[in-house]
């Protein structure tokens, strides 16, 4: 399973492409695909958004579903999705705690 992620051009915020065809600020809103056709669709959306100067560093990443939550396979992507592990008051994790 994969989701499409990037950083927003204006402020660098980590974002994920959502089924609503916009760049969401949390991974929970990401569009999860599990076949080649879905991946191709996401990649095309990423290329278009990059060309349109909305986002940079566009990448398809591997995820799994854990109790219905989207969880990236790599720690790097889990930290991107949550925030620094030493500062729970920063990043996306700070929003859910609030």
């Amino acid at each position, binding site marked *: 399973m994969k989701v499409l992620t990037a950083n927003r*051009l204006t*402020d*660098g915020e*980590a974002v994920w492409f959502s089924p609503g065809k916009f760049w969401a600020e949390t991974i929970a809103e990401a569009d999860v695909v599990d076949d080649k056709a879905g991946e191709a669709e996401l990649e095309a959306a990423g290329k278009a958004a990059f060309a349109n100067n909305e986002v940079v560093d566009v990448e398809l990443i591997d995820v799994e579903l854990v109790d219905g939550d989207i969880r990236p396979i790599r720690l790097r992507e889990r930290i991107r999705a949550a925030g620094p592990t030493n*500062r729970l008051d920063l990043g996306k994790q700070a929003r859910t705690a609030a």
Partner: protein
Amino acid sequence: MYRYDEFDTDFVNARVAEFTDQVDRRLAGEITEDQFRPLRLMNGVYLQLHAYMLRIAIPYGTLNTGQLRMLAHIARKYDKGYGHFTTRQNIQFNWPALSDIPAILADLASVEMHAIQTSGNCIRNVTADHFAGAAADEVADPRPYAEILRQWSSVHPEFSFLPRKFKIAVTGAERDRAAIQTHDIGLHLKKNAEGELGFAVYVGGGQGRTPMIAKKIRDFLPEKHLLSYATAILRVYNLYGRRDNKYKARIKILVHETGTEEFARQVEAEWEALKDNELTLPEADIQAINAYFAPPELTARPEGDQAVKLARLDSKSFADWVDQNVITHRHPDYAAVTISLKGIGEAPGDASDSQMEAVADIADQYAFGEIRVSHEQNLILPHVARADLKAVYDALVEIELATPNSGLITDIIACPGLDYCALANARSISVAQDISTRFADLTRQRDIGELKLKISGCINACGHHHVGHIGILGVEKKGAELYQVTLGGSADEHTSVGEIIGRGFGPDEITDAIETVVETYLAQRLDKSENFLAAYRRLGPAPFKEALYGGEAKAA
């Protein structure tokens, strides 16, 4: 300290205007990311995991209080209330919006700071001994020469697109606190038999995936030839350094592959051709730059000895702090103070906006308005009257920056690691926090004695793990973090690269492993005067391997 002249001011302002226009055009979609990326990197703007990162140069680690207050202001207004001091004496902000960076750079320019050449294949911020101008063992202040190198290397047309980045460090004392032998060029300022100033020149040191100790290619270079000789080195490197392979592009590889003798011959030949041209430094120019670094007028404060004596009797915690974080100054009534940014369990090198402002206030009141950033990620007050040490200590306690651990096992260098950095493979900060918490007890730390523990979250080695007495390198193995331990590294005048001790440890094992290493040292040392590094050099890796891996080590 150095003050911008008209040329410097115009140059920095022009660069701010230029980059502001480039950001505007990028945000308007008029230039692509591929076009913009090299431009933003030239101005210190990286993209990391959560956001952009802005790396700001702190030339030779010297700040005045106005500059430190501006860094606090930037942290508060544009970032998330803190900054991260780095192993290159710089500061990084981890959360700025690209759209705010022109305003940040304009604010920085107003206090004579910038982010130019903090990235890219150019000559980076020149670093120096953080006790420069204060240390009792110093021959001369290395910072005027670092400043001369800064002026020469700023947007140097010939050296702006080198094969790879290039780092220069300068020390003015026999005891090397600037890690010069781990730099592309290391300069040791000293006097010859005639009492003239000059440099021992080291070339080809570096860390990263291929750690190398710099080779001395000249024992004494008269000071006036600093720029012509540096030019000769850079020319040889620019001509012969590899551009086909990023991992073999640093000058350390060129020196290694060419051979030190032949490399030195090439440099000397190049230098012969240009040594008495316009690059020769006129004595008047050296004096003019030196004048900027004239030490503050240190009036006699002989009451300091008695004041410290009484305060020590009154407060054990003050006594501990003086013993650990205060060093001898060249003036007997004064001291140099290390402000530890390594609170127990804290992220190494981080300081909040209010802490930065408070340190600026303390420096204004008690330390002639001068602050240094050390490559060990601490702040320094270089000139404090001993009579004022208690007041400084009390003020630092107020802002939780009085941790008495300078040079001890919890004074850990750590890169930002996978919590922030796009290049990292594993976390560094969390490991530092765990180890710091495990060894929190000061009595235990002081019993262990001097121990430099350095952690990098990837092979690029920003956390200097190769030269830690104990080094930790985080790698990613099968999707999980794994930490390799190296022992016996050192970044002083007897620089050595640590040896990998064996298989790595998981995040839940690494602190135990470090404790095992430390306990092995304690059991094996001759006595307390033999520090960890000396004991390791005497014992070699065997007892540590045995303690860490037991029978497994024998089988292997």
